[in-house]
């Protein structure tokens, strides 16, 4: 069974940008490991030279529309959903915390 160790889990949650609590880490790590073991089942199948799936050959054609500017989202409507904004701009904390990271 492929069990994720703490380091692997930490790297994975960093990739996902999710900060998990220690308790969550235990449960999630165990769940992910169990499922990874289950999907090893696919190793039984010989897929040599099998192309990855695509429905395109079943009759789909590319749907492209005219390159014409249509009504988009107004700034006012956009800002209604923004958690923090100032002067019509989205406000976020600094990339680096001046006290911690400089």
């Amino acid at each position: 069974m492929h069990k994720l160790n703490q380091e692997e889990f930490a790297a994975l949650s960093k990739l996902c940008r999710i900060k998990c609590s220690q308790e969550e880490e235990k449960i999630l790590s165990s769940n992910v490991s169990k499922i990874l073991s289950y999907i090893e089942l696919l190793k039984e199948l010989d897929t040599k030279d099998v192309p990855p799936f695509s429905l395109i050959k079943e009759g789909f054609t590319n749907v492209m529309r005219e390159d014409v500017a249509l009504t988009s989202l107004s700034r006012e409507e956009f800002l209604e959903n923004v958690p923090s904004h100032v002067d019509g701009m989205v406000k976020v904390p600094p990339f680096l915390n001046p006290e911690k990271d400089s």
Partner: protein
Amino acid sequence: MYNLSALEIHSLFMSGKISAVDITQYFLKRIEKYDPMADAFLSLFHSRALEKAHLLDRKKREGKALGKMAGVPIALKDNIHIHGEITTCASLFLKNYKAVFDASVTRFLEEDDALILGKTNLDEFAMGSFTENSAFKKTKNPWDLNCSPGGSSGGSSAAVAARLCPLALGSDTGGSIRQPAALTGTVGFKPSYGRVSRYGLVAFSSSLDQIGPLSTNVLDAAYLMETLSKPCKRDSTHFNGPVNPYQSLAKKEIRGMKVGIPYQFLDSLNPELKKNFNATLEVLKTLGVTCVEVNLDLLKYSVAVYYILATAEASTNLARYDGVGYGHRSIHAQTLDEVYELSKQEGFGPEVKNRILLGTYVLSSGYKDSYYKKAQQVRTLMFEQFKEAFSHCDLIAMPTSPSPMLPLGSVHEPLEAYLQDIYTIGANLTGLPAISIPSGFTASQKPLGFQLVGGFMKDSVVLQLAYHLEQALSLKQQIPPLFDKE
């Protein structure tokens, strides 16, 4: 009025026997009275629906043209956008998110004059099989309030089963329309991939998701499909074929059709469910349909393939929820990285996190070929096996779910939950149309569902056989006793 079909309600409205306002008020009152028991709805649109109803009544008085769904009440799963209304996806992350555009299906329903009553509960971001992963409430199965209605379109299926509205929209990625339909004794249809526009459906797994109808009978599902399958230039995966007259196609003769059954794959099915499945096949035979055996042994890999592909696609689709431009933002975030990490931590439930982690893992460098590519290759093999099966039959029959409704809180292990989808996932992986219709009950009065899967873009053939089978089964008890009253 609660035991009328959508088509009957439309007919009553068009003939002037009942007004749109009366229809709307009736169902809104019924929802207020009974939804506290079912917990199917997340939001109701009293003023919006009544405004539309008044407009329809005025149009009728003035002799103006009315849309083909005029006067028909419908509910939408809360992962489908209605401009100006909240779309939560049953997630804390989007608790206050106001949709900034209409989904194409919303637009089609409004154009056809349907009456949208509200949004229904689901598993968070459509990830789940019991609607228990909703951040807000647990929907109950109208046949037994201690049981789950299935998922992830549990709210829509419960609303229709309890006759709180005659129609609802769900979305199906691994069985999320069909399985709750089976567990609540309703009809649930997943169209062929690309048949219904996904524009405005919050994406979970882009190569698997499809919007489809939940209804009390097959003809209503066919009726709704005529509206849903209208052309859309905003979804690049939309097939954009002609809209088929699904209602009239459903009534075509079925004598001489062949149904394929993957007997080997159904070997381990619960005996009571097997008995019901076989009894339903016998009914098909009385209609002049031949049953043949087909080989679909690759279906045993479907859960494994699905949980690689769907989680991979989900991890990409949910990356956008970063707390910056919309949705939940953690008040504790002191840096930009913390905006992402803490907002996701606080906004997402455990199953969503589970799937994002898994999906990220299978796509990460060093693993992508052995997981994602492998799964896509197995998917091709499955499609080819289905195609081969369809050279021997017109449709494939299987039970919808390996078990009837389960008590709320009874399934804790993710893998155990995932295996609930064993019979439904195949149709999503291969893009094939599939329906679940009620096929009877267990000895303890739990609804059971019978599933039909058709060839690619052969949606009308699925609806056709389902319609005739439904007529022949003529199940006497269709409405849950608790809700079978005014």
